[in-house]
């Protein structure tokens, strides 16, 4: 049975510690520094990168917000947002959401149930090219009972039907977007001037330089504590770290491990560890990159995959790269949602060598194994944008030499990496995926139905039994049967060893010492941004700007 994951304990403590904050009238400006100079369109369906999602989560609103434990089953833990309350139908084939009458769009127009209907229709419209069509597959449609009641109808009763509607959908303003043809959405003006109903409003967007949000003081759920949040762009992580340490910036979400000591002693900022949903692994392509229909000449054989998993000293690698920040990978999920009872292959080079021998890979004169003239040699692809995975590639390459396998380091530009990832043109690669809070989301990455281009099963791993177990677990309402089925599916998947579960990064942010942080959740540091605050006596020059617009 899954006991309480260690993380929720951590979050409870965090909340308690800030209980003593004085009730504050709000104020202060926070500068979030972002490495890179572009952002994807700032509309919920199209926002893909971290920056885009941070802005969207604060400018738009969902019907209801998931609880801190990220429970996606039923509606336990969900707190009201645009929907003040909701009511399950007797046969639970539909849920009626009552929109909060006080809710308004930033241009002052009231939020109506028709907006919710419009949003769902847009998200499911194939021409809008959003990524949500497959995720909302079980939500049939939304009808408007009256101006303040929207009813969601479902195809089947599933444990995560409430999560699908409440968590996946940011409600969009119909009156603004209805005239824009769906396929022109990405390059439309609206994508550059997002207008929602959230506690922050867009103040300004300057391409390549900054995105500025300002507090919506008239918000029905209360104005945010901060007056202003500025997302400023810099060239690379190094520049971002320098700005945080020199006090020019207040927040950077992803500090490299080796600067922590400098940050904490800088006297200006401090490092803040917060859990993430990411899990990093080395994926082994099940299919031959040149002829995808055929099994991979090396990784097609389960014994080779298991041997490689045993040949890598995963504990030492985590310590080398993350010091105390990283946790050992525990399977196809992050620690926050892990099933810790799964048994992973243990580090044992002797057994690995024996397995390779039994699979017919004999050690050649140059120390590299080969079978039927083909050397045990494969490329390990890694994007240059991820420093951690680049370092892992170097460690893996050296360790595999000791069992007679030659891993060539293919560190390539992120775009070329994604292109080859989706087209299956790779042997092995280092990938980090975010665990979907919805347990059934695992099928998206490891189910046979989720082969690219539709799904994310890039290695084209396929195990009918695992598929069956996942499908039944996703539809049963009996909790203990569901846990038991997930457990058996995970164990079988791990025994197939399609990947080596490397690490679970504990992301670290650099935060200016005057900023008090609230409710950072694994699926996004920004979810509680509206409750972050700066004590009156510690404010500096930029905090005194307040709400007045900039002189041009």
């Amino acid at each position: 049975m899954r006991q309480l994951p260690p993380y929720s304990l951590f979050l409870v403590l965090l909340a308690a510690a800030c209980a003593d904050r004085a009730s504050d009238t709000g104020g202060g400006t926070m500068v979030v520094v972002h490495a890179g100079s572009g952002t994807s369109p700032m509309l919920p369906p199209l926002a893909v990168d971290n920056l885009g999602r941070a802005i969207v989560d604060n400018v738009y609103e969902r019907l209801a917000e998931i609880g801190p434990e990220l429970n996606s089953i039923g509606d336990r833990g969900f707190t009201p947002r645009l929907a003040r309350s909701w009511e399950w139908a007797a046969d639970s084939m539909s849920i009626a959401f009552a929109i909060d009458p006080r809710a308004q769009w930033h241009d002052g127009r009231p939020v109506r149930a028709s907006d919710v209907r419009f949003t769902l229709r847009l998200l499911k419209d194939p021409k809008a090219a959003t990524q949500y069509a497959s995720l909302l597959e079980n939500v049939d449609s939304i009808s408007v009972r009256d101006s303040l009641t929207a009813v969601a109808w479902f195809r089947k009763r599933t444990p995560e039907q409430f999560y699908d509607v409440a968590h996946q959908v940011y409600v969009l303003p119909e009156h603004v977007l209805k005239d824009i043809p769906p396929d022109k959405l990405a390059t439309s003006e609206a994508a550059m001037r997002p207008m929602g109903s959230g506690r922050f409003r867009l103040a300004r967007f300057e391409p390549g330089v900054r995105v500025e949000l300002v507090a919506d003081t008239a918000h029905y759920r209360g104005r945010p504590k901060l007056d202003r949040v500025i997302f400023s762009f810099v060239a690379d992580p190094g520049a971002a770290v320098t700005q945080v340490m020199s006090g020019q910036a207040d927040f950077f979400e992803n500090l490299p491990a080796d600067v922590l000591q400098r940050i904490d002693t800088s006297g200006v900022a401090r490092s803040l560890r917060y859990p993430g949903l990411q899990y990093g692994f080395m994926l082994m392509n099940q299919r031959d990159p040149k002829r995808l229909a055929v099994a991979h000449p090396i990784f097609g054989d389960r014994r080779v995959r298991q041997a490689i998993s045993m040949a890598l000293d995963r504990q030492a690698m985590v310590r080398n790269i993350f010091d105390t920040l990283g946790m050992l990978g525990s399977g196809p999920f992050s620690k926050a949602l892990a099933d810790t009872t799964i048994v992973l292959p243990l580090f044992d080079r002797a057994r690995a060598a024996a397995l390779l021998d039994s699979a017919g890979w004999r050690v050649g004169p140059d120390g590299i194994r080969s079978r039927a003239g083909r050397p045990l040699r494969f490329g390990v692809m890694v994007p240059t944008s991820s420093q951690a995975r680049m370092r892992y590639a170097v460690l893996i390459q050296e360790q595999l030499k000791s069992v007679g396998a030659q891993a060539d380091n293919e560190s390539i530009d992120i775009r070329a990496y994604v292109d080859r990832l989706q087209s299956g043109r790779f042997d092995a690669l280092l990938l980090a995926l975010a665990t979907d809070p919805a347990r059934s989301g695992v099928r998206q990455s490891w189910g046979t139905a989720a082969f690219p281009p539709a799904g994310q099963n890039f290695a084209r791993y396929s195990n009918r039994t695992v598929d069956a177990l996942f499908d039944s677990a996703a539809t049963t309402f009996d909790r203990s049967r569901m846990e038991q089925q997930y457990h058996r599916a995970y164990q079988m998947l791990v025994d197939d060893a399609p990947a080596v579960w490397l690490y679970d990064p504990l992301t670290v942010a650099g935060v200016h010492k005057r900023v008090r942080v609230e409710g950072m959740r694994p699926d996004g540091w920004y979810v509680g941004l509206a409750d972050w605050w700066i004590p009156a006596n510690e404010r500096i020059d930029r905090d005194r700007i307040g709400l007045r617009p900039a002189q041009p």
Partner: protein
Amino acid sequence: MRRLVAVRLFHAVVVLFLVTTIAFFLLHFAPGDPFSFENPNIPGDVRDRMRAEFGYDRPLMEQYVRYMGSVASGNLGFSHLLRVPVTQALGTVLPRTLLLMGLALVISFALGIRLGVYEVRHWQKRRARASNGISLFIYSLPDFWLALMLLLTFAYWLPILPGGGMVDVVMHEYMGPGQAAWDRIKHLILPLTALVLIVTALIARYQRAALLEVLPSDFVRTARAKGVDERDIIGRHALRNALLPMITLAGLAFPALLGGAVFVEKVFSWPGMGLTLISAIGVRDYPLVVASVVVGAAMVVIGNLLADIAYGLADPRVRVR
């Protein structure tokens, strides 16, 4: 003179056409395109639809013809990175680089020539040998390292100057005119110093070599025989002749400066053309990358043309014929 300019302009157009073609095919042959997003969660079919919208799924030659047609009619396409038409993107980005490069060029030439002359005039003195040694040392340093050291020294260990960007992202709009001007200068100091150090070292070396080339000439001996003092011998007679090769160097300095600017902009997050180009290449922003490379080339071609004209005016042997 007018015929020379006309011929050179024709050559310039030919050159720019070649450059556009090279840049276009170079980029399109590369793996990945503007819509292979960094986030692997975007399903493949969604990407294909976006590609179709911009016509990136058409055969390459057709895209090329369409692109060249639109360039001829002045439309450089839409930038995926900055989400604005390319002309507008370049309009905001180019002046930032020109400001940096222009100032650096002017200061470096003034300093470089003076340093070159100084080193030749006092060649025995220790100071001159030292300055020659220093400029040789700076010339041997990688540009980015020099910029990085300046940044670390003056923005981190000794935080007296801002660590990057063009203006104080937050406070700039809320400053009075005087304060705002000072803020802009403060942000300009470090990148400009980095660029000036690099280019001055280059110019000082060339100026010194050019002077040493001219000094053993007969007319310098004649001037000495006339009783002209050492300062005028080098400062007037020799320098006037040694400036001619410097003019051609100015033409050649443009590509070097543009190259240097790319590194300096990356270190100081100066959102100029260099930095934008690196990011644009990262996201395969075809229209912006090709346009930037062509603009870079145009700057070089114009630079060379101006240098040739200036040379014609400066050298009586050429002008009077």
